[in-house]
């Protein structure tokens, strides 16, 4: 079986002939629509316009790829762990605010620290340190002293390097923390220890060097750190909170829902003490893709000007999807993951650690949600930065996943693009219907094919 066969089953044409034809038609229509129809002063008119056509297409693909990131996480967790995690939106909020917190701490945006209560700040800063201590204790019990030193040296080099060059203590601390987490992740994945050490050192050396060259490696580390932090929280919560209720769909849903509420209210208590006075603070921030491009930057290519952040966000989400496919189909852990998704008990019998696999998969899925949050932070318009922004995210993810079919990764990606395209196209015509039309599509598909486009039909008994 080749790599491609696993992604696209060979007999899909026979089984899903009409769906594939319909999808082709839909996408051809969607791609060509913005080239032909334009929103002129007197309603919608036929007007050939190359530039806005390409622009809209890129917008749509970028929106779709963001939805894909969210939906893949949701769908992957369902496929492997058979859990519907409603905490997706909560982790989205967590990722976004973690990044914001880190940027504030490293004094990227110093003016926002003025109205920040000092002690509260200290308390928050204590949290990751406590986390590190716990992780260190765990690590020390597993590793022999030599590997332990290896993993500890990498953060010292990278963090120390940044401190030596820039003099920013906090930035150095967090860059070092990222190095530590890379090492620990490698240990958790049971990679060969030599490779862990190599990876840590590669990262440790590259960060200061890249910084000297001019690459914003601090921002990069912070971005990575907030994604990994989200994933860590997801893994820990999976391990300690979902353990007793793992096999009950409903209890898992209730617990994860509660988790989302907890994250939301923590953010609400910490960042919005005056009942929402600070909402404007988040909307007025001139967010860029942290430190890499200015928010208003525009790339001109072949005479077509497109906002740069959209392109960068698109590239990053594509990279994430590709990495995910490599992870699932090319690594040892990916095999274990797919084995668990087929049959949990049989996989356990041949030596797969079920709890670890499910914890890891929820880490990956929720890490993707955090990554999507980091990417979306480039856009000030949507989502509005508030503690409740997770719920619409969750609902979009649910819509995408039910459209594509539960547990089907390919289906989720295609559905994400369907919804992304329909949303962008509709909003280019009339923004007030941009929410209703995609949901109408979802409901139509659910009526015609309740298991989704590529979902597996459940057999009786």
């Amino acid at each position: 079986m080749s790599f491609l066969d696993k992604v696209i089953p060979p007999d899909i044409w026979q089984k899903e002939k009409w769906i594939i034809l319909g999808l082709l038609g839909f996408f051809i229509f969607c791609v060509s629509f913005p080239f032909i129809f334009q929103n002129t002063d007197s309603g919608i008119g036929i007007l050939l316009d190359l530039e806005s056509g390409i622009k809209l297409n890129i917008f749509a693909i970028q929106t779709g790829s963001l939805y894909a990131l969210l939906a893949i996480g949701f769908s992957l967790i369902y496929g492997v762990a058979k859990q519907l995690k409603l905490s997706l939106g909560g982790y989205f909020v967590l990722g976004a605010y973690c990044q914001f917190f880190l940027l504030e701490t490293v004094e990227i945006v110093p003016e926002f620290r003025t109205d920040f209560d000092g002690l509260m700040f200290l308390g928050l800063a204590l949290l990751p340190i406590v986390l590190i201590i716990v992780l260190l204790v765990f690590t020390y019990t597993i590793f022999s002293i030599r590997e332990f030193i290896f993993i500890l040296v990498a953060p010292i080099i990278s963090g120390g390097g940044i401190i030596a060059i820039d003099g920013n203590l906090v930035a150095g601390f967090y860059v070092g923390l990222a190095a530590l987490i890379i090492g620990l992740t490698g240990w958790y994945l049971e990679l060969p220890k030599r490779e862990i050490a190599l990876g840590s050192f590669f990262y440790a050396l590259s960060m200061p060097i890249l910084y000297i060259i001019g690459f914003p490696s601090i921002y990069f580390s912070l971005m990575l750190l907030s994604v990994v932090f989200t994933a860590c929280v997801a893994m820990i919560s999976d391990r300690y909170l979902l353990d007793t209720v793992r096999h009950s769909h409903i209890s898992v849903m209730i617990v994860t829902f509660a988790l989302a509420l907890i994250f939301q209210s923590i953010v609400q208590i910490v960042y919005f003490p005056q009942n929402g006075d600070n909402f404007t603070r988040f909307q007025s921030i001139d967010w860029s893709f942290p430190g890499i491009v200015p928010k208003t930057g525009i790339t001109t290519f072949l005479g077509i000007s497109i906002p740069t952040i959209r392109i960068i966000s698109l590239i990053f989400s594509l990279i994430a999807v590709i990495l995910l496919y490599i992870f699932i189909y090319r690594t040892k852990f990916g095999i274990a993951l797919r084995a668990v998704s087929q049959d949990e008990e049989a996989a356990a019998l041949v030596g797969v650690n079920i709890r670890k696999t499910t914890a890891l998969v929820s880490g990956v899925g929720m890490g993707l949600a955090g990554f999507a949050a980091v990417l979306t932070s480039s856009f000030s318009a949507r989502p509005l930065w508030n503690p409740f922004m997770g719920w619409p995210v969750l609902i979009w993810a649910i819509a995408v996943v039910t459209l594509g079919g539960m547990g089907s990764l390919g289906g989720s990606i295609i559905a994400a693009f369907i919804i992304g395209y329909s949303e962008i196209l509709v909003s280019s015509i009339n923004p007030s219907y941009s929410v209703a039309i995609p949901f109408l599509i979802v409901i139509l598909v659910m009526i015609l094919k309740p298991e989704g486009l590529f979902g597996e039909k459940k057999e009786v008994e």
Partner: protein
Amino acid sequence: MDWYEFFEDLWDEIKDRGYYISGIALIILLPSILGAVNTPNIPFLTDIYAVIGEIGLFGSTNFFLTILSLCAIWGIFAASWDILSGYTGQISFGHAIFFGLAAYIGYWTSVGFDVDPALVGILGPRFNLSPAIALIFSGFICALLAVVVGILALRVKGPYLALVTLVIPLITASLFKLNEFYPITGGDHGFPSVPDILTITGNLDTDTLNFYIFSIAVLLVSVGIMMLIAYSRYGLIFQSIREDEDAAESLGINLAFYKIFAFAVSAFFAGIAGGMYAQYRHIAVPSFFDTTFSFTIIIMCVIGGIGSISGGVVGAFLLTIMIEILLGDIFPSSILEGVDILAFGLLLVITLRYMPYGLARAKPDQKKAVVFGILFAVAWAIVPYSNFIDYLSVINVENILMFLVMVLITIFTIPAIPVFIVSEFLGLFILEGLMGLTLNAKSLIKAKFLIYCIAGIPFAYYLPKVFKIVRLRFWGVWPSVGRYEPE
């Protein structure tokens, strides 16, 4: 048949239903205990009232009665969720759809289809039903809507149903907020003045008491009806559907009918609760559709125990009193909204982590831990404030007894002293230092009580276990020779 069997049965019945009976009796007697109505001058009742008033634990009488009315409304709502999800197994994560809709329907039917009373007869028809009829009418409309949702529910099962129901109220809320529907729904701000069933006399005491009596009466009637349904043969069929749909259907049970029936019953009472809540707050706003509303009742049912109508009611009373009376005094209203949701979430996560079947069906040692933890907390919140040495200034039987009780409490909680000191230090540091709260004497005692509860319950759980380890370490197996203790 032996002559004493009857008494044995009676005793069993009282043991089984004792909590309910005493709870209902307490709720009914409460206004007189609190002095809201003129009671015959019973020394016992006046004493209790004096103690409660002195500590100031419950705030003023009116406030406490208001909170209890709120408890009753939540109790109806939680029980209505339980009959659908706990009994029939059709998990609904969006029960607020019925709650919110009933609030709006109550306004539409008792006032009309527009916001501005000056526009009477211009924009839409006006019904001017009496609020009581409007309440029942909105219940029936909700039941009708539930039939539609139930037909949907026939196609999707289990977690998918939960997902679908999660989304429905959110979409409805966003529709209600649209500007296009402003004349009908009142837009973002909803309707400001939902008329009350009870005539407003202007006398705060009487109004509060009347609403309390009204809501408790509705609670008793509707929970009674729901219990009748749950314990009848319909309840049995509901449970069989929850356990195994296919098996139930193969035994000749009409799944479609009973599922829709469960939806309709549940929605009817959720509608009643929603209508009463709108009357309680005198508003109908889109935030009634919030997921937190749907979720609160799930927490209540989980804590009380899913699958028993009374569990939801008990959970509703516990949680509402905790949030409104304990947290409401400690935290200022500006951050209370975040704190109570945080408390909900943490409570739920912890309950499901350690007691997946709720408090009612927890393991014995966990139940003991909860009871003893709370007792420790009560004792330690009270002991420093009661100068119990003074009891001995007047020597009589009562005072000596009370003194002995206090001494006993103090002795039994001595091992917990370091835990309480540390937790008090940490907790007050978080509250006062980090969050910058200012606590007055009344809220300080509540905050301490809360902190002691948080520290005391795990302490009471682990103390016997630690003691066992220590005992085995130093004395070997001696104290438990010949006794098998399964873990």
